[in-house]
């Protein structure tokens, strides 16, 4: 290996940026192929019903309409990332039991394929669907106990996943406590609102593979789910990702992928060789893909006057919506993280994922972590208040440290640095470590009759990589070309660049490890016909997993190079230490192999006349192990913070009786530049992860986690009110202020 290191830790420009600033980058909706047809989906637009009949006869007769596909045209009419509980198309005629039911407004009923986009729309209106409406199940707490009204009649209960943790003796722990804080919390739904709505194009490639160019997060999982529904071997399906217009977890599940594949494959069987293209409108995107899970939480925690947390009991109920998506995995994270980055001797957690007729909920930056962190951090801040202890001091007395046992009764993986992160963040925000312990700074800004100031503290940890026994690996292939010296290198990798800069990082690793200039590295990315299984661009895992896979592949290739193989070609599959699932009784498990650590201080003001909250300053300290590209890391911190700000203050997804009232970006608002904090102070710590590639940890999610509880603590400091439900819209704030009087 080369000795000259020069590329890791450098803020090189994104190689994709040139195309993106010139408008030349092709996102899925920008790709046109000769002779292409267009596809449109007929959505159910009703939350719960049985389809009695679908009449497509008029639509198919419309000149220019090529085909209209319904449930009977889907070879295996089911899909799902975790479980195959969702029909590709709802309606009669398939073998899937109860597939004639629609279970949320975004369920798909028919696909219309025609010569032009406007014809698809015209034909869509000519399809007649007879529905028999069913009672709508919209409250997860009610649905949890109601076994009479089922979203999936082939199941005995609407609860489709339950985890429990039993550590120590809860009652004993509560008995030892001097104060007990009980809380009930509700966290809201959040829409990803990536700027590029779902789109894609499908065609049959030169090797007769059904090929789909689409924006996603995990090429091989898309491939597998498409193959399952089409009843084809996976190698007959090819998934390619062009430029991806944001994801944040919102592209982890299927949207247009199976539809497009089915359409192209169906046309081929009809003897028509036409690419098929689709672009969803914003409304279709908002009803058509999953959201962040809302959680309904009951909890009580106990602590001694000395600030030792003795017990935590938490019940989590989460609304999975109509189908499972990644609910079970998201809830696993929330189940672990709802007791925070603290070593608590006595823990009892019960969590339930429940089907309803709401839009399904699934992956979204943080993946259960933000909901868990909200509960844990609010509880700790309330405990601190109750025992009159500084919020940093109480944390310092309970934080996980090297060798600490988690709630699931296994030790933390090595490299625990949450105490350092908390220390740094507190110091930066003006806390003093005195002989009486940590003490918060006095608020420098003066309150007026109307404007009240406050600061709040919170911290979190976020797993890196798949958890709880999910198969976890990542493959890279490297080719080294040249004669005496390596002249250029090619990396084959599936890892998706959703905008976060994954491909930039890949190239930096290659350049560093091979001591080559950047322009001598060629990347072939995200094409299942050419690149190996990488796992998804999610769970803060791509830098960590892909980095390790690239290190391994480069090492193997260099061995071949030394043996005079030209070109030297090597593949490497990185497998991290194994994780294990929750024990059904105790919850005992080895949940994760690596974590990143984060702490935040939020400084804000509340206008008590309007309820508007203005963020003056956010300090965010993140231990990223090694900042492979510091500017990209700061971009993640700033982006995550602003997205979390939307979650905490502004983004209000309104769903009643299974229908959404915020299906556009003019009804569902996300932060504009005039809404964001005046100052985001990103501080990067680099405490190497022992098994991270060159020490790197994952970090894309963690700045999101502590933000909301830090805001809630700051608002409490300003107004004396604890908010247990958010977003903290002006209206919610005013309403509580009036209650208080």
């Amino acid at each position, binding site marked *: 290996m080369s000795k000259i290191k020069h590329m890791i830790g450098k803020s090189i420009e994104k190689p994709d940026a040139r195309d993106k600033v010139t408008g030349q980058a092709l996102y899925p909706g920008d790709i046109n192929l000769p002779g292409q047809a267009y596809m449109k989906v007929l959505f159910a637009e009703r939350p719960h019903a049985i389809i009695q009949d679908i009449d497509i006869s008029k639509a198919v007769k419309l000149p220019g309409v090529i085909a209209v596909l319904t449930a009977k045209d889907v070879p295996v009419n089911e899909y799902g990332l975790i479980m195959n509980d969702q029909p590709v198309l709802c309606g009669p005629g398939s073998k899937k039991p109860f597939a004639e039911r629609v279970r949320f407004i975004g369920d798909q009923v028919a696909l219309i394929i025609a010569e032009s986009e406007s014809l698809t729309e015209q034909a869509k209106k000519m399809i007649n669907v007879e529905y028999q409406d069913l009672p709508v199940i919209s409250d997860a707490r009610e649905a949890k106990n109601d076994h009479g009204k089922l979203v999936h009649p082939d199941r005995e209960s609407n609860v489709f996943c339950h985890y429990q943790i039993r550590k120590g003796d809860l009652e004993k722990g509560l008995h030892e406590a001097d104060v007990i804080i009980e809380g009930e919390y509700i966290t809201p739904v959040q829409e990803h609102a990536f700027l590029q709505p779902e789109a894609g194009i499908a065609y049959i490639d030169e090797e007769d593979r059904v090929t789909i160019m689409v924006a996603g997060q995990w090429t091989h999982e898309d491939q597998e789910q498409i193959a399952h529904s089409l009843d084809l071997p996976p190698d007959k399906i090819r998934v390619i990702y062009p430029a991806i217009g944001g994801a944040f977890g919102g592209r982890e599940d299927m949207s247009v992928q199976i539809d497009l594949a089915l359409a192209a494959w169906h046309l081929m069987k009809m003897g028509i060789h036409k690419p098929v293209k689709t672009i969803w409108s914003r409304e279709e995107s908002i009803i058509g893909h999953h959201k962040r899970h809302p959680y309904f939480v009951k909890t009580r925690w106990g602590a001694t006057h000395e600030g030792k947390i003795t017990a935590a009991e938490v019940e989590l109920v989460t609304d999975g919506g109509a189908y499972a998506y990644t609910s079970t995995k998201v809830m696993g994270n929330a189940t672990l993280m709802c007791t925070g980055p603290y070593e608590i001797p006595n823990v009892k957690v019960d969590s339930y994922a429940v089907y309803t007729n709401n839009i399904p909920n699934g992956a979204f930056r943080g993946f259960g972590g933000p909901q868990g962190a909200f509960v844990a951090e609010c509880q700790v801040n309330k405990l601190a208040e109750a025992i009159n202890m500084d919020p940093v001091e109480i944390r310092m007395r309970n934080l996980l440290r090297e060798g600490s046992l988690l709630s699931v009764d296994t030790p933390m993986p090595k490299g625990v640095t949450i105490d350092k992160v908390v220390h740094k963040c507190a110091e930066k925000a003006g806390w003093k470590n005195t002989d009486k312990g940590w003490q918060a700074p006095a608020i420098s800004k003066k309150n007026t009759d109307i404007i009240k100031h406050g600061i709040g503290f919170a911290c979190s940890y976020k797993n890196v990589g798949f958890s709880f026994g999910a198969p976890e690996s990542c493959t890279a292939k490297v080719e080294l070309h040249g004669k005496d010296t390596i002249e250029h290198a090619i990396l084959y990798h599936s890892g998706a660049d959703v905008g976060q800069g994954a491909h930039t990082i890949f190239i930096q690793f290659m350049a560093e490890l091979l001591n080559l200039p950047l322009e001598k590295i060629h990347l072939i990315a995200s094409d299942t016909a050419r690149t190996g299984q990488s796992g998804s661009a999610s769970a803060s895992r791509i830098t960590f997993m892909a980095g390790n896979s690239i290190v391994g592949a480069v090492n193997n290739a260099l061995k071949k190079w030394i043996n005079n193989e030209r070109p030297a070609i090597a593949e490497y599959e990185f497998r991290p230490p194994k994780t294990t699932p929750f024990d059904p009784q105790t919850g005992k498990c080895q949940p994760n192999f690596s974590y990143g650590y984060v702490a935040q201080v939020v400084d804000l003001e509340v206008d008590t006349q309007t309820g508007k909250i203005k963020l003056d300053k956010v300090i965010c300290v993140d231990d990223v192990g090694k900042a492979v590209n510091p500017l990209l890391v700061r971009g993640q911190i700033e982006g995550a913070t602003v997205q979390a700000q939307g979650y905490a203050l502004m983004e209000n997804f309104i769903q009643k009786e299974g229908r959404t009232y915020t299906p556009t970006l003019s009804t569902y608002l996300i932060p504009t530049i005039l809404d964001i904090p005046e100052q985001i102070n990103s501080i990067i710590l680099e405490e190497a992860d022992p098994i991270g590639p060159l020490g790197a940890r994952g970090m894309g999610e963690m700045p999101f986690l502590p933000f909301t509880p830090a805001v809630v603590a700051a608002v409490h400091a300003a107004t004396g009110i604890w908010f247990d439900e958010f977003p903290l819209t*002006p209206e919610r704030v005013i309403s509580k202020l009036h209650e208080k009087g």
Partner: protein
Amino acid sequence: MNNAHPGLPEFDYIKPATLAEASQFLVQHENESRPFMGGTDIIVRMRDGFWKDKYLVEVKHLEGMTSIHFDPVKGLTIGAATSMNNVAAHPDIQRYYPLLAEAANSVASYQLRNRATVVGNICNASPAGDTTGASMVLGGVLSVHGAGGLRTEPLTTFFLGPGKTVLKPGDIVTAITFPIPPKGWAGKYIKLGRNALSDLSIVGVTVLGYPDAATKSGYRFHIVLASVAPVPFVAAAAEAVLAEKTISDDVLDAAAAAAMDGCKPIDDVRSSARYRKLMVRNLTRKALDEVWTKIK
């Protein structure tokens, strides 16, 4: 084959040569045609399926539609198709009608303000219109070209309901005119939305005040509230309080309370009626305070 946006209905685009021709066409195609200027609002409403006109009649290109003219005696005339940004940036408007410039600057986004117009904002008769309040308190009068020729329509009697106005088939608003504002006046527009600026208002409060020997208090105030009633709401009870009683903090409080008590807002995705009412009181109070400080 063009790829029209699938959500948009088919229509014909008419570009008449004169106002008379435009009015005539609109009369002939009553209930299936509509005058068309920037289109920022019409296109969204067509796309969302609310409006399905067969004909859009372009009037923006017609004579005088984009001019701004200020006369120190007669006042201000703004052509109907003048963009919000041109209104906001015009030196005479900034100098003599700053309230109008302020209101125009608070509409949606910069790009939208390059297309959207004050007259369009008024003619859409949205209760949330950001420039309607300023136009009303400044005494705006619309110049209307109808089938029977030219006439004027004062804004005070212009609105009938959401999206409904006194305009008849064939009517084309060509301009809005404003008299010279009263001596010693000051005005304020406060917009409260779900975000910093670009959202439609939850509540909008426009206040204009000036010394007036004809009232008991010696001052007259005009107050128009947005987003709290089916039409832009004139807070007459509050205006009366301020005309009758010697202005003090208590009287300003009472006027704000009267504004709150007088309006009957609704619940929607942006806010509840209850919050709107409270905000009418708090923001009216705030706007009154700012105006009063300037004119007393």
